[in-house]
């Protein structure tokens, strides 16, 4: 009771290396707070506490390899925990707070009954105007955002850009430098490939896959997006990828048989649509963390979440909850240049959605032939959990949703 143990961060994980403690004895932690960084074969992952209380003792030194389930620290459950999150916060707002790194305990709710609203979190997250006195380090907006995401203190860096401006690369270098020694890149890339190989082999062995594909006209959607982007500043520009992800998420709500897990010989539906997004790492690895409740996010929120995930994935700063959560995954959004592909499902999920490259092709428009931007949407389904008819319904729902981008 009260022991914080090495969590299992993947189906094939039996041990992990504790890289870094994010808390010290005496610290108050609430359930859900990040307390440690653990290295699995695939990535450095931030792990949260399942207890609310006070950190009593840390059992394990950074750098130690520990089997899954072994105790790492003792957390004494506290009777009176520090200011608790208001019980009247919706899960969606809580996710937003996590994404924006906002401490809900410090936010005053302006909604009905003291409820913390979306807007409350957004304004808590918005950078405040620069204080007049202490010299604010000059940094590009990208560098600033990266620094916030990766936990780098800009005042410790010297910028080499014009006027001493700090650039994004300096921030990335600083973040890498402060990370405790992890297995060197070659070792990690090898380990990651081995893990992915094992997972894919298992998937092909155990899951009877069926494959479907559908070609979707994106003309309306992309024209709408172009218009929307013309009104937005460049940092808020929305990629077609965000539209595709939103459609994939909403379609999973309409066809829940594809959203969940095959465990214990039966299908267990997910409690929400946590959309896994396959992200390629620059060293050739692949991770697929989740965007929680993706169907309930607005397009700008989804875009911001996608950018945030990609940045943290590449910096090795993903969280345990993101890696274990996906209820359905969308694979490499046409970035590798092929138009369509037959994916391999990540067990224990039961479906994988793929979007190929958007290409301009001749297409029937009314009674004429025109050139339209087309994308091939593919679905790999677990035949134990669903059949082709269900899969077809999913794909036609995606196609339909993409014809009404303003509703997405």
């Amino acid at each position, binding site marked *: 009771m009260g022991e914080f143990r090495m969590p299992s961060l993947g189906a094939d994980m039996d041990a992990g290396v504790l890289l870094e403690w994010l808390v010290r004895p005496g610290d108050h932690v609430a359930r859900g707070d990040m307390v440690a960084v653990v290295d699995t074969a695939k990535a450095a992952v931030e792990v949260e506490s399942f207890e609310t209380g006070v950190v009593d003792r840390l059992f394990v030194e950074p750098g130690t390899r520990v089997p899954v389930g072994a105790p790492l620290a003792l957390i004494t459950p506290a009777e009176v925990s520090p200011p608790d999150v208001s019980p009247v916060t919706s899960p969606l707002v809580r996710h937003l707070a996590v994404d924006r790194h906002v401490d809900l305990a410090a936010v005053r709710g302006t909604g009905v009954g003291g409820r913390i609203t979306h807007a409350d979190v957004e304004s808590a997250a918005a950078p405040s105007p620069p204080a007049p006195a202490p010299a604010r380090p000059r940094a590009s907006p990208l560098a600033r955002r990266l620094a916030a995401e990766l936990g780098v203190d800009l005042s410790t860096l010297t910028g080499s850009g014009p006027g001493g401006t700090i650039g994004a690369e300096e921030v*990335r270098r600083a973040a890498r430098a402060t990370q405790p020694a992890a297995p060197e890149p070659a070792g990690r890339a090898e380990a990651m490939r081995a893990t992915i190989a094992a997972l894919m082999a298992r998937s092909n062995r155990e899951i009877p896959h069926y494959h479907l594909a559908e070609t979707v006209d994106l003309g309306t959607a992309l024209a709408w997006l172009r218009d929307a982007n013309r009104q937005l500043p460049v940092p808020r520009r929305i990629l077609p990828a965000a539209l595709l992800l939103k459609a994939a998420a909403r379609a999973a709500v309409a066809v829940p048989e594809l959203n969940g897990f095959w465990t214990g010989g039966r299908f267990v539906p997910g409690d929400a649509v946590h959309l896994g997004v396959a992200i390629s790492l620059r060293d050739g690895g692949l991770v697929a963390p989740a965007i929680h409740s993706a169907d309930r996010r607005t397009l700008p929120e989804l875009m911001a979440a996608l950018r945030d995930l990609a940045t943290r994935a590449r910096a090795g700063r993903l969280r345990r909850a993101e890696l274990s959560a996906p209820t359905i995954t969308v694979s490499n959004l046409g970035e590798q240049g092929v138009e369509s592909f037959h994916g391999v499902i990540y067990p224990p999920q039961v479906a994988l959605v793929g979007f190929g490259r958007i290409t301009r092709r001749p297409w029937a428009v009314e009674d004429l032939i025109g050139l339209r931007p087309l994308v091939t949407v593919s679905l790999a389904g677990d035949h134990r959990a669903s059949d082709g008819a269900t899969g077809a319904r999913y794909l036609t729902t995606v196609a339909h949703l993409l014809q009404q981008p303003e509703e997405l």
Partner: protein
Amino acid sequence: MKPDDADRVTRACLREIAPEANLDALTPEADLRQALRLDSLDFLQFVELLSERIHHRIDEDDYQELSTMAGVVAFVSSRNEH
């Protein structure tokens, strides 16, 4: 902006987005996205960075001029007149 400066700014931005890429091996006519393995997110971050550095908004309509190193340098040279 002189082409030399434009080239320098462009390379600086690319280096931030793709720090491990070998920019010296990049020919002027090579497709940037393919050569540097930039996905749509990377490219957007590149555009955002470049836009900020040259103090000029880059629209999606401008993207067709930005597929090669030569294209980007020409674009930057003509847009940033100081």
